[in-house]
């Protein structure tokens, strides 16, 4: 077993920052209305001297212009769920710990390579989505969780190495129950190694079973007991905008983020999306729904963004938008299109299937078809839509154009070949007794005409040898 832990130190702040294009000073504030204090600050706010724990009034005295956004505890859980969905791409065993995601990666090694490789993938994905993270790997999930808290990129692969790595961890970083972490340093126990070597019965008497269980989970002697993450079957994300937006163009940046997130989520789930709804929420008026539908399931961020942008740009906003919501109830499976290794088509080519879908969407479901031949000699029955052709190839000459139905032909003409008697179809409702001739018209066209068997008159035009 090898568990990776992604510690997410500032989920709430990252969740807010990733929705803005600029990096003007911004802080998250929490607390009672008369005693608000800063719980998170972005880099430019910290550069200006703001720090976590500072009173909002003190910060305002220090810096004239900064944005203070109320801290939303529910957003932390929401982002954590979202990132678990992204991590689900790498492992079927993903679990949530406070401010962290752990995933079992030893079974994914054959797909993604050794840990160093896997670490690179994880870091790339999380960086691209805009979330600060610390990564560690250890044989137990709680071990990885502790290691992620003390250093960047620590990885231990055996139980003994984990033991050694844990020995030096200060108790304050050990993520053990708070009562023990408070009391033990006063008893002279400052390192995790010391604690792990203490007599267990004494510890149990003093701190209860809870501490021992936590210690056992850390070393792997007791199952981790994690609730594994299951990706939900529907997506309903809400992005609150920082100000009221009256112009659709201003929705493009959040939309881009949302569709990128959707693509990341879908590839984590190995699925696609064919239909989703963008809901624009207004202050007083009814929300505006913008349905987005595609011809086949898609999960590429660009395709999703293009499809959504096309629909959104046509919307006339009746009132300012406060929030953008993305709802996708149906997430069908996704089969990526296969391409030849030596593809001779231009680089930006559409596949023919995509082209056909596009044509059908505009011209009707039956607008695009193929023809196949049957073994029936009657011209009206000799070909059918969307069938595989029979192997039989008619030895007699057949024209290249067929009229949809024969029309009378009265012009002067000269017989070139014929007759070819067709006397068939007696078994169904369309029996036929005709003589077919190839004739040349006055204009020089070659025509395929027929008349009743045995007569040479009352000509009907059936097709052209064009």
């Amino acid at each position: 077993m090898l568990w990776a832990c992604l510690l997410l130190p500032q989920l709430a702040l990252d969740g807010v920052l990733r929705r803005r294009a600029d990096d003007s000073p911004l802080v998250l504030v929490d607390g009672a209305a008369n005693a608000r204090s800063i719980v998170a600050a972005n880099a430019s706010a910290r550069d200006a001297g703001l720090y976590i724990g500072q009173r909002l009034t003190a910060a305002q005295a220090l810096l004239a212009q900064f944005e203070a956004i109320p801290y939303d505890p529910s957003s932390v859980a929401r982002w954590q769920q979202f990132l678990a969905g992204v991590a689900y791409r790498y492992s079927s065993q993903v679990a949530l710990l406070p401010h962290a995601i752990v995933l079992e990666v030893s079974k994914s090694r054959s797909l993604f390579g050794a840990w160093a490789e896997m670490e690179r993938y994880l870091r790339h994905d999380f960086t691209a989505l805009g979330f600060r993270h610390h990564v560690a790997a250890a044989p137990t999930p709680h071990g990885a969780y502790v290691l992620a808290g003390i250093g960047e990129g620590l990885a231990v692969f055996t139980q003994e190495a984990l033991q050694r790595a844990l020995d030096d961890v200060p108790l304050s970083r050990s993520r053990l129950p708070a009562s023990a972490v408070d009391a033990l340093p006063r008893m002279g126990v400052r390192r995790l190694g010391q604690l792990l070597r203490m007599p267990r019965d004494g510890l149990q008497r003093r701190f209860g079973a809870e501490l021992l269980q936590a210690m056992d989970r850390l070393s792997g002697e007791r199952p981790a007991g994690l609730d594994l993450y299951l990706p939900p079957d529907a997506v309903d994300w809400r992005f609150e905008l920082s100000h009221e937006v009256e112009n659709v163009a201003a929705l493009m940046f959040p939309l881009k983020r949302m569709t990128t997130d959707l693509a990341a989520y879908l590839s984590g789930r190995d699925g696609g999306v064919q239909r989703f709804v963008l809901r624009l929420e207004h202050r007083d008026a009814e929300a505006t729904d913008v349905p987005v539908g595609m011809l086949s399931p898609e999960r590429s961020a660009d395709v999703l963004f293009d499809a959504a942008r096309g629909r959104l740009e046509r919307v006339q906003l009746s009132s300012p938008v406060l929030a953008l919501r993305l709802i996708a109830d149906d997430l069908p499976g996704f089969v990526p299109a296969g391409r030849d290794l030596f593809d001779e088509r231009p680089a930006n080519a559409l596949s023919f299937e995509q082209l056909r879908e596009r044509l059908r969407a505009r011209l009707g479901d039956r607008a695009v078809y193929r023809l196949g031949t049957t073994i029936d000699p009657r011209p009206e029955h000799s070909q059918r839509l969307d069938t595989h052709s029979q192997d039989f190839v008619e030895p007699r000459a057949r024209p290249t154009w067929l009229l949809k139905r024969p029309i009378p032909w009265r012009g002067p003409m000269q017989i070139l070949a014929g007759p070819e008697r067709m006397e068939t179809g007696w078994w169904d409702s369309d029996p036929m007794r005709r003589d077919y001739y190839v004739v040349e018209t006055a204009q020089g066209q070659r025509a395929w005409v027929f008349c009743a068997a045995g007569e040479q008159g009352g000509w009907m035009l059936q097709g052209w040898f064009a």
Partner: protein
Amino acid sequence: MGAVVALSNLLDARQVWRGHAAPLADGEQPTGCAALDAALPTRGWPNAALTEILLPADGVGELRLLLPTLARLTKGHRPVVLIAPPYAPCAMGWRQRGVDLQQLEIVDTEEKHVLWAAEQCLRSGSCAAVLTWPQQADDRSLRRLQVAADTGRALAFVIRDRKHLTNASPASLRLELDGAPNTLIRVRKCRGGNPPTQAIPLGHVQRFSGEGRQMAAAMHAVHQRVHGAADAGPRGNYLQRHWVDSKQSEA
């Protein structure tokens, strides 16, 4: 003024120089008609470009000109698309001439969508050739097709009535067909060279078995194949299959 300057002196002094047309790729898309290939500066259809074919009437040989090319293209990976053909292609007739019907896509549409569909198919890059029969197409819309054909590296064929000959066209190649049954091809415009002055005979007029002979003896020939097939297999199955076929085609 008045002094006569030899052009060769100017050319030698590099004061005047000759422009050269971009070299044309030769013979990438043979037409299947050797005389026509030889007459065209591209030694075949202009690749990834628009070709206009002007007809005095339907059925004078436009498919005789095109089918060898279509037969060759349908052997490849990319399909050939027919957009709103004036008649139904006779599947058996096309097969007799070597066209793989599995790579032949037909788009039925109203006149107002014909050019849109043609442009989509050409631009997509997934079609080898697109044949279209627009009733109304102006200079502007043909230019769009020309650009789309270039983008999607496809052959575009526009087949129209001869009356459009007087209108200017952005097509790389304009052919006029004349005088069936021994059809002549007149090249009206070809990019990359002067159009040949001579009309080119469109070869291989199909000879029909017994053409020009009296056919009285054959008058009573009953359709042999039906009887042959009926004898070959269990009669009941054969009839049933036909019955199902005809029901489906009615539906």
